[in-house]
């Protein structure tokens, strides 16, 4: 197992390298000029040229690339062209909100969706199943910002239980954090509940038809044990995959939800950086996202063997 993990970690190095080269080239080929954003509308071409020189944007592409790689190898993500602040610091500030909301969303989603999927499969073709599937279709179909606005209207404006917007870190008090994080998490959870519930139901239906389930029932094993110990554990692999991918998606940025609830997260940082062509920030963001995907996939793969002992590395 350890050898396998080590191999996988080593395999990420070429992946990250390819991502780095690709991102670097893609950004330089996209039209746009960070110097023009920095200097504003009234700058003359000569002034822009001097600013570009200072920022190193006039250096040959290879020089720029190797300077950046050199920084990366020293663990330095560089400095934002616009705000002159460290990119690592900016990522650190923004990762907290995104990570906390993602964790809360995935927790809510799993707690709701897995039982929903199991019950829907257990009561296949009854009104319970129909209800779960209807919710699932609704969760998929309604755009996330609409759900966000509806939740804000009901819980923040009409009932005034929670604030309309904003984010506070858990360190500033759990109540302050929770009251602000609950609506965005519920909003995002709608999609994931739909997704995970469907996957759980489909996977469970397949397993519930297996011989060993019939055997377990024939032996008089209680139904909840049949469902949750025998069936769910065997149905877990595809469900875990969905949860893993969902979590990575949540971290790599949910721009619309972050905008609607005014959460200073990774998604907004990325979009703002792209609009301003703030190269060091965009490059760092994409590397981080790629890294998160690789890590979450590894975690999911490793967890398979925990649920399904037949899988050995």
């Amino acid at each position, binding site marked *: 197992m350890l050898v396998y993990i080590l191999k996988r970690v080593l395999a990420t190095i070429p992946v990250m390298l390819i991502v780095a080269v690709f991102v670097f080239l893609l950004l330089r080929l996209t039209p746009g000029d960070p110097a023009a954003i920095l200097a504003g509308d009234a700058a003359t071409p000569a002034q822009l040229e001097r600013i570009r020189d200072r920022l190193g944007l006039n250096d040959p592409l290879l020089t720029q690339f190797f300077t950046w790689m050199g920084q990366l190898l020293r663990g330095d993500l560089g400095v934002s062209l616009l705000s002159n602040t460290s990119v690592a610091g900016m990522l650190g500030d923004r990762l907290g909100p995104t990570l906390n909301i993602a964790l809360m969303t995935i927790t809510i989603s799993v707690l709701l969706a897995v039982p929903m999927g199991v019950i829907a499969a257990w009561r296949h073709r009854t009104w319970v199943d129909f209800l779960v599937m209807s919710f699932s279709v609704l969760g998929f179909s309604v755009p996330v910002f609409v759900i966000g606005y509806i939740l804000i209207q009901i819980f923040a404006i009409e009932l005034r239980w929670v604030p309309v*917007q904003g984010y506070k870190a858990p360190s*500033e008090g759990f109540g302050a954090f929770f*009251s602000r994080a609950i609506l965005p998490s519920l909003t995002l959870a709608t999609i994931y509940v739909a997704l995970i519930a469907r996957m759980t139901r489909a996977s469970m239906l397949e397993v519930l038809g297996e011989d060993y389930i019939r055997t377990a029932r024939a032996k008089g094993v209680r139904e909840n044990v049949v469902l949750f110990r025998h069936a769910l554990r065997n149905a877990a692999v595809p469900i875990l995959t969905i949860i893993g991918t969902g979590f990575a998606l949540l971290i790599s940025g949910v721009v619309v939800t972050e905008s609607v609830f005014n959460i200073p997260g990774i998604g*907004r940082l990325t979009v703002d950086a792209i609009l301003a062509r703030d190269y060091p920030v965009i490059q760092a963001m994409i590397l981080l996202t790629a890294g998160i995907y690789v890590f979450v996939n590894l975690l999911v793969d490793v967890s398979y063997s925990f649920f399904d002992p037949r899988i050995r590395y």
Partner: protein
Amino acid sequence: MLPLRSALKQTRGLAAAFAATTALLAPASLAAQEGETTITAVMHSGLRVLDPVITTAHITRNHGYMIYDVLTAVDANFEPQPQMASWEISEDGLTYTFTLRDGLKFHDGAPVTGEDVVASLKRWGERDSGGQLIFDVTESLEATDDKTVVWTLTEAFAPLLTVISKQSAVPPFIMPKRVAETSPDETITEYIGSGPFVFNQDEYEPGVNVTYEKFDDYVPRDEEASWMAGGKVVNVDRVVWTTMPDALTAINALSAGEIDYLEQVQIDLLPILESSPDVTVETRDELGYVTIGRPNHLHPPFDNKLVRQAAMAALDQESMLQTMQGDPAYYNVCGAIFGCATPLGDEAESEIVTGGADIEKAKALLEEAGYDGTPITLMAPTDVTTLINQPVVAAQALREAGFEVDMQSMDWQSVVQRRAQQSPVSEGGWNLFFTNWMVPEISDPLINVMVNGRGDDAWFGWPDDPEIEELRKKFMKAEGAEAQKAVAVEIQKHVMDNVNYIMMGEYLIPQARRNAIQNMIPSPVPVFWNMTKEAE
């Protein structure tokens, strides 16, 4: 029936528990703010660049007015007034002597000296187009003692005070000498001013939040505040600027009392706020903005004056403004290139843009010009709300007049990069784009970059127009308001004939505040002095 009732009962129980939990926990977040007055404002954009001299971005200029002070500033009558310094002008108009007032201190406690002023003005002079004009005729600028700065010119420059008092597109903010010695092509890294607020470095999150604290040692002038002049009396402890990318969220937050002030409100969302009893919607910047079209004078077909005139005849201010703003209360048909409510503004010979589209005239002009159907590349930004509509309306009008129009959609960054290309359209160039300015940024021939006629050194579009350059020189020498106005009218007529750019009218952006916020002074730049906050 029974299960439903019990389910409802359970839901109610859950809801009550949830409400109780959040209610119990909520005060924790408010405790930090107790005892001090904080104004939370949602500004039009996030603050990312902290150097108000390197950039012309409005949000950075607004930041500049929070933490820095200026030597002189214009009041609501467009008159320069003393702020940090009073002045004397020699009889020949060649020597300006500035004397700093008592009690001026930087946020680190050091006194403001003449050396700081000289270094700050020199750095500003390298970046600002008006500043460059003054330094072109500067013999020396020196501090003769701690409180005195003497500026000696080689020839008279009548509008000197107006230029150094300007409130937009790079005002000369005074910084400590060590900071002002930073190259004008590099951003500063220390943010210390002598203004009424102190920048809180620890709480700064670029693009998200910025916090200012009252500078207790700031000594305001005795006069009443008027625009950027007069006493900057701070009545609150903290001001927090925050960014909200979603307009509806900002409006909901204001209605719920989570924020105090919204700098700009989208016109189509106004009805939501107008029904809120705790909120006042008003226009504090009565000068507003202008929207303009800029043709590229280097390449066909707009290298031909007749074709530029045809385009101007085809466009209709009213329909463009109507599409942009909707509500006529928030726009103004205006043909004055220096703005309709400014001292130099005059609508002479502007019927061609204010009198509605004249398609027949446009067609006749195109025929006279021998227009051969060369398509016009019109750049259309899709990500800036206030610039989305103009290209669409213009394309339709120009096509009706017989132009071939190739409207290309792109993000604003692509427009910004492409408009700097002097090459022909076939090699990545362009013919026409639209943009907006604040009226104070175009209100004067020395400040308005679009009336610069120095060819390659002019603003994007590069008109090579010796005649307008002569007029601008004449303006620099004109003494007294009347003489300056006369030259400004000549420039107005010239632009209407030569179509250096196309004035498409003025528009206003309303703001909204909680009723607890009082005593905000009207000003083109949102300022946070003078205002008070009552308990709600």
